[in-house]
């Protein structure tokens, strides 16, 4: 298993080969765990639940990794984020039924710049994000890392959805300008 490529491992996983799934776990658990840990705002309990769901998804998925559409790790993190978003949406729906959401002006979301300052690895995307305005950063975090939809964010920020979309448009273009050419991994 150690000599197999990621793509070969995933083919084996599709064929229900358990050692292949365990090998993928060993290779990428730090990556997946770190991603989900950030997504859940550092909740170890939720991270554990979502890690389980991610590996269940890999085990049961009928969609195959296609190496022509990018690196395996990119695909793996996209799968991971989809599971995170599904999980958070279900949880938010549950919370909505219990209490009215009011996140307007909330300071729950830490200033991402503090996180960047504290981290030892200042990677490319972090650098680019540091060039964004506070409202742009907040939008990216709510949308990408908290799993809120554009419509939900518009409601939370008390703004028309068009304004939110426009801000996302500007944010992504600005990020692109500051991202160096080439893949960062």
């Amino acid at each position, binding site marked *: 298993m150690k000599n197999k490529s990621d793509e070969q491992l995933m083919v084996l996983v599709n064929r229900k080969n*358990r050692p292949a*799934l*365990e090998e993928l*776990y*060993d290779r990428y*658990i*730090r*990556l997946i*765990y*770190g*991603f989900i*840990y*950030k997504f859940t705002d550092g909740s*170890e309990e939720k991270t*554990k639940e979502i*890690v*389980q769901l991610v*590996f*269940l998804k890999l*085990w*049961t998925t009928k969609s195959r990794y296609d190496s022509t559409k990018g690196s395996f790790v*990119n695909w793996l*993190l*996209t799968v991971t*984020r*989809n599971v995170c*978003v599904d999980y958070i949406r279900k949880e938010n729906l549950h919370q909505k039924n219990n209490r009215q959401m009011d996140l307007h002006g909330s300071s729950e979301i830490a200033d991402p710049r503090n996180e960047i300052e504290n*981290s030892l*690895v200042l*990677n*490319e*995307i*972090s650098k*680019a*994000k540091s060039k964004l305005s506070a409202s742009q950063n907040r939008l*990216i975090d709510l*949308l*990408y*890392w908290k799993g809120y*939809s*554009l419509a939900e964010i518009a409601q939370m920020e008390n703004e028309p959805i*068009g304004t939110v*979309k426009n801000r*996302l*448009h500007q*944010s*992504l*273009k600005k*990020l*692109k300008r500051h*991202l160096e050419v080439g893949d*960062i*991994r």
Partner: protein
Amino acid sequence: MKMNCSHLLSYIAEEMNEKDRKLFSEHLKNCRECSREYDQMTEAWNKLKWDFEEKSAPESLKHDVMNFVFNKSQPKNHLLVSWIADLRKQFTPLTAGIALAFAVLSCILILFTIQLKNELAATEEEKLSAEVSGVMLLHSADGAGGMVNPAGGAFILVQGEQRSLVVQLQNLPALQGSEVYQVWLLKDGKRENAGTFKPDEKGGGRLTYSLEETNQFDQIGITKEPDPFSKQPRGKKVVGFIKTL
């Protein structure tokens, strides 16, 4: 939903259901403006995922994850477990004891049957392993006293330690009243009784005689006796055999 350029950001943010995604993909192919914007924005969107740090997971997590995956994805096991649980509910200690006793009894009977079969098979083998050790040659038929000549054969059959003399004859003259044919073992002029027989209606006769170790002979004589109680031949000799082996 009619797809237009206003849906581009929803498309990039992966908020559309599969059907709408397909519709917008079609729009994207035909709209130069959207296509250009998409190319610019999607690269940044795809790199957002790298804005985190790798982190060591707790040691015990792997075990938990694998258990979760393989328990969830194998409902058959759950069925088996619940089936066994249901089955257990059907038995009180008494019925379980009775069932166990029957099970043990069945096992004993099966083992007994197997052993019996093996013994029978061994016996069959012994029977099959019987071999002919001595063949007798028809020697004379001078005293048949009729128009017909008896024909037949005699041999010694060995089965394990058991030796039997087998005599088989055809065309024997019919007997009258208490008359019998008697077989004698001959050795150095001495005669020993080896049994009597009566032929069937067609003149066929057969005799099997268990030989003792003390029975020594090199010829056989068959006489017609007035009754089955002769200690020495009283009637005429009908057939004689000489041992050849």
